[in-house]
């Protein structure tokens, strides 16, 4: 099966975790990756620049109405990020969800509705239960769920909450996740 998109949710300690995964990906990695990281409403996006330095694939903030293409997109601070059926991004300023804007659930649920079984959802380190409803929806729609091993995550709460709600397809260490992504997206493209 060919996966159309990968969504990743991460909160505290997220930058390090994302770096580890993204630095493993080769330049030809074709599947779009869409990230929600919990960040403060007043934060600038300097972390995107930091992330860009450790990874070959271009990383940018998702623009509203932009078409989802190859590359890594991150949700802008203070906006929810959603994916439309026509594979474009929408941004909203709706209330915070799980005290977060952007919220992982909002991205994951809309991505699940759009990509159905062709979606991979990944929950990484984090200190609240945002993303739990999102992975549930991904599973209901037939997608694949990967969760970082809570035992070795910087903050175990978010991955543990996801695991309590669904049976993930993979529970693994950060350095294995990049390899797995390469394996499943490559084998699907042959």
């Amino acid at each position, binding site marked *: 099966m060919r996966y159309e998109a990968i969504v990743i949710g991460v909160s505290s300690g997220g930058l390090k975790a994302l770096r580890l995964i993204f630095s493993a990906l080769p330049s030809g990695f074709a599947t779009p990756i869409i990230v929600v990281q919990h960040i403060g409403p007043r934060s600038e996006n300097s972390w995107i620049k930091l992330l860009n330095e450790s990874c070959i694939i271009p990383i940018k903030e998702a*623009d*509203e*109405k932009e078409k989802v293409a190859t590359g890594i997109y991150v949700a*802008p601070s203070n*906006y929810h990020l*959603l*994916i*439309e*059926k026509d594979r474009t991004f*929408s*941004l*909203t*300023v*709706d*209330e915070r969800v799980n005290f977060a804007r952007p919220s992982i659930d*909002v991205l994951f*649920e*809309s991505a699940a*509705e*759009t990509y*159905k079984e062709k979606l991979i959802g990944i929950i990484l380190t984090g200190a609240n239960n945002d993303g739990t409803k999102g992975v549930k929806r991904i599973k209901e*729609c037939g997608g694949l769920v990967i969760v970082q091993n809570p035992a070795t995550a910087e903050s175990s709460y978010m991955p543990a909450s996801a695991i309590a709600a669904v049976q993930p397809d993979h529970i693994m260490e950060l350095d294995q996740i990049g390899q797995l992504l390469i394996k499943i997206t490559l084998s699907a493209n042959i």
Partner: protein
Amino acid sequence: MRKEDSSELEISLLLEAFYHKYGYDFRQYSRAHIRRRIMSRMGLTGISDVALIQSKVLNDQTFAYELLQDLSITVTEMFRDQEFYKSVRKNVIPVLKTYPFIKIWHAGCATGQEAYSVAIILKEEGLYDRTTIYATDFNQQALDRAKEGIFSNAMMEEYALNYQLSGGIASFSDYFTFNYDRGIINQSLKKNIVWANHNLVTDSVFAEMNMIICRNVLIYFDINLQNKVQKLLYESLIPGGILGLGLKESLRFTDYSEKYTELDKKLRLFKKKY
């Protein structure tokens, strides 16, 4: 046909029903957003079928207005995006100062916080007394709250910080009188604001403005509707008039990107060409 496809169709039918029965048109809104709001209402009411929501909308006006509130986003704050207001002080005020009378339209004002923010800046710049601010929204409930201008102390703390970060140097609390746990905005800031019910999707031009502020409204619209509303905004501005959008909004996908110059590109302030 798969179940998901029919639920998509059911949402379209619900929006048709809503429009034809009540005149509110959400048919060209971001569908992912609308779906999310409807699902949340379904979760609250325990109704698991969009078709049942549709029949309830048609037969139960109270329910329909609840759903209308769900679909209308009223999240706002005073001096939201401080850099934007800093730029208004720096780049817009000098332009406004050249006019003997000033008309500003705040389109989609929700509960009014940003309209009051503009009022404060105008006051501090000595322009308030020659300005009329038209603050409009289609959500009457939000407008009624906007008119009151009452904010909780918890909100006030956030707003005071926003105000300072946006370059405000006066004492923010001087603009309010306090009553128990709430701040009420001064009458002197309210007097030149005209609150009116106006729907950007279905209503038309009503005056010629020196400035239009329409922030975080267009992100909810699809490209066709964005274009239609940009036409309305363009036609409502005098030549040289200023348009202020939300920080993630642009004229990029519309027919109007060539019809403005950029007053502040990053902070989304545009000037209509002569």
